[in-house]
């Protein structure tokens, strides 16, 4: 059976080059980088090299890179740490389509008497920068807005939003977990204060993330303890994973220019192929300002879980914004925030590609999926 992996916004395969550079840090170079002996000490410079590799991908200074355990930790550290450092009566401005890693801390802040504003999006998943400006005028705020949406791939005008926030004197954080490695990012040219990224979304392993913190940003540390990461995040460094993430960032930088257009072409081929064959099918979200690898398609009158199981049997891995697959009873909060009718929301499928996908794989999906849709529609009372 073929295996076609189109769920790269959930997680990506670890690049072989990454595995290779990590290996020695399990077998030989397992010292503690804080140790006062050569055995540990020699490890420290590998961490610094990785820090440079990450910084280089996003146009930052290496001293502004803080290694964390995952994207969720980075988001928590940014949102909670910035609010804590800012003091009482600071508002948190975010959006209704954020990842749970930001919405969770936002809910926590609200439960502890903090004021939280969630900006809405339109039918294409885009937000209105003027609304952010209006909210910022109401008082001091920490702003956390994702660079690109994990479900639809919709890309927000993040440089503009950061600019608006800085003009109003706010602190700006962006969850760029889905954007890093897929879009060119140059933090030297935007006033973004903090940025989260996650290793396993760009072909490094799970269990490693980064929070970029611009010099001078007021941020209370989240993990208290050791002096590691210049006191910004206690805990012995996860050396092999840090080294792996460094390599993954270097690879992403090398591939960025040619990978984006190539993956986008594959994605468009998939999208157009499916839309042409399957009636009552539509794309969710802004198709222009979008990650090159993501496509979110609604198949009307059927439910996402059934589609996923049948595709899985055919060796195709994707995901769905349907209620059933999330374990909740309502379709994804992103799809609902866009006001997509329930008739389409329950049958939404997300395809997310990577540099490892091929045209042959895409054609296999175009050939395999339409009969599945037809089969499930034959069962549906609404067709």
């Amino acid at each position: 059976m073929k295996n076609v992996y189109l769920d790269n916004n959930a997680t990506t395969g670890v690049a072989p080059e990454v595995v290779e550079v990590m290996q020695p840090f399990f077998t030989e170079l397992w010292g503690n980088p804080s140790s006062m002996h050569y055995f540990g000490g020699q490890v420290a410079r590998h961490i610094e090299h990785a820090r440079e590799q990450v910084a280089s991908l996003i146009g930052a200074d290496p001293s502004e890179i803080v290694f964390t355990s995952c994207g969720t930790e980075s988001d928590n550290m940014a949102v909670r740490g910035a609010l804590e450092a800012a003091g009482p009566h600071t508002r948190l401005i975010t959006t209704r389509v954020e990842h749970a890693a930001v919405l969770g801390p936002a809910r926590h802040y609200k439960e502890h008497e903090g004021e939280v504003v969630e900006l809405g999006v339109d039918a294409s998943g885009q937000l209105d920068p003027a609304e952010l400006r209006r909210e910022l005028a109401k008082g001091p705020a920490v702003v956390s807005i994702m660079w690109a949406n994990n479900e639809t791939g919709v890309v927000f005008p993040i440089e503009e939003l950061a600019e608006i926030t800085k003009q109003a004197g706010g602190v700006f954080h962006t969850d760029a977990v889905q954007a890093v490695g897929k879009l060119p990012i140059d933090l030297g040219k935007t006033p973004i204060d903090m940025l989260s990224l996650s290793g396993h979304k760009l072909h490094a392993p799970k269990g490693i993330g980064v929070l970029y913190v611009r010099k001078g940003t007021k941020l209370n540390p989240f993990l208290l303890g050791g002096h590691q990461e210049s006191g910004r995040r206690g805990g012995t460094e996860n050396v092999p994973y840090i080294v792996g993430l460094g390599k993954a960032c270097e690879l992403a930088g090398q591939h960025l220019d040619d990978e984006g257009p190539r993956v986008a072409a594959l994605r468009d081929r998939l999208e157009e192929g499916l839309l042409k064959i399957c009636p009552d099918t539509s794309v969710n979200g802004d198709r222009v300002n979008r990650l090159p690898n993501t496509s979110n398609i609604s198949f009307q009158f059927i439910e996402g879980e059934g589609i996923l199981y049948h595709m899985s049997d055919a060796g195709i891995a994707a995901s769905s914004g349907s209620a059933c697959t999330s374990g909740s009873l309502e379709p994804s909060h992103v799809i609902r925030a866009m006001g997509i009718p329930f008739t389409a929301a329950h049958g939404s499928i997300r395809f997310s590609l990577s540099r490892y996908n091929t045209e042959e794989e895409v054609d296999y999906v175009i050939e395999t999926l339409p009969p599945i849709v037809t089969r499930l529609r034959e069962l549906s009372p609404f067709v």
Partner: protein
Amino acid sequence: MWDYTDKVMDHFKNPRNVGVVEDPDGVGEVGSLACGDALKLTFKLDDDKRIADAKFQTFGCASAIASSSALTEMIKGMTIDEASEVTNQDIAEFLGGLPEQKMHCSVLGREALEVAIENYHTGKTSKKILEGKVICKCFGITEDEIEHVVRDNKLTTAEQVTNYCKAGGGCGGCVPEIEEIIERIQEELRAAAAPVPAKPRTILETIRLIEETMEREIRPMLQSDGGDIDLIDVDHDRVIIAFRGMCAQCNVAEFTMRDVVQAKLREFVSPDITVEEAKA
């Protein structure tokens, strides 16, 4: 992925009885696109008034499709009375069980069957019989329906109610009301389970009960240690017994008397009983 049984996956991948029965005797439509699952059940009776054919159309996840398919298989050959006894538990059991969060799929099946039978009896074609107050406004679930799943499945938490019929799974605003319904039904069940005050037993009934208790609760324990016990006499609340075998010479017989014999008879016969050993 969900932990579906092989039978669920079989009915999902190879659904039985898909479609609409021609000229049906009963039609039941429940759920909606907005709710995330919907089922249309149709059946036809034969000359003996048994369900000769049943078909379904379902919008929903794998377990909703499997539950519908299972339902049509289950009710074929049943009389209307037999079919009206089918519970959501029966559907789930037929499939070898469903994940807790997917139990609402089995409830969807039972509801469709209920509506189809109602349609057979009355000719009413209402999509769903909405009786009583709507509690969950997000999914349009009535008080009656919540009571039904709580009773059928002996539910004790609002979270379970959400898993079984979706109520409370949207905005969550109705969770306190659901908890009140659960509490009320629990209270009813507790009242129903409370022992009915017994008529005073005759002396003969008391002796029989003592003998049964000794046979069932006491003798096997003593026999496993090589002993035995005989009932000698009963005088109101005084029970006279004699130890036999190993028990007759046992130096902890006194404890056996109090902690086993007397305790068991107090538990199963009357709390006022005292047990004495027959004088040799």
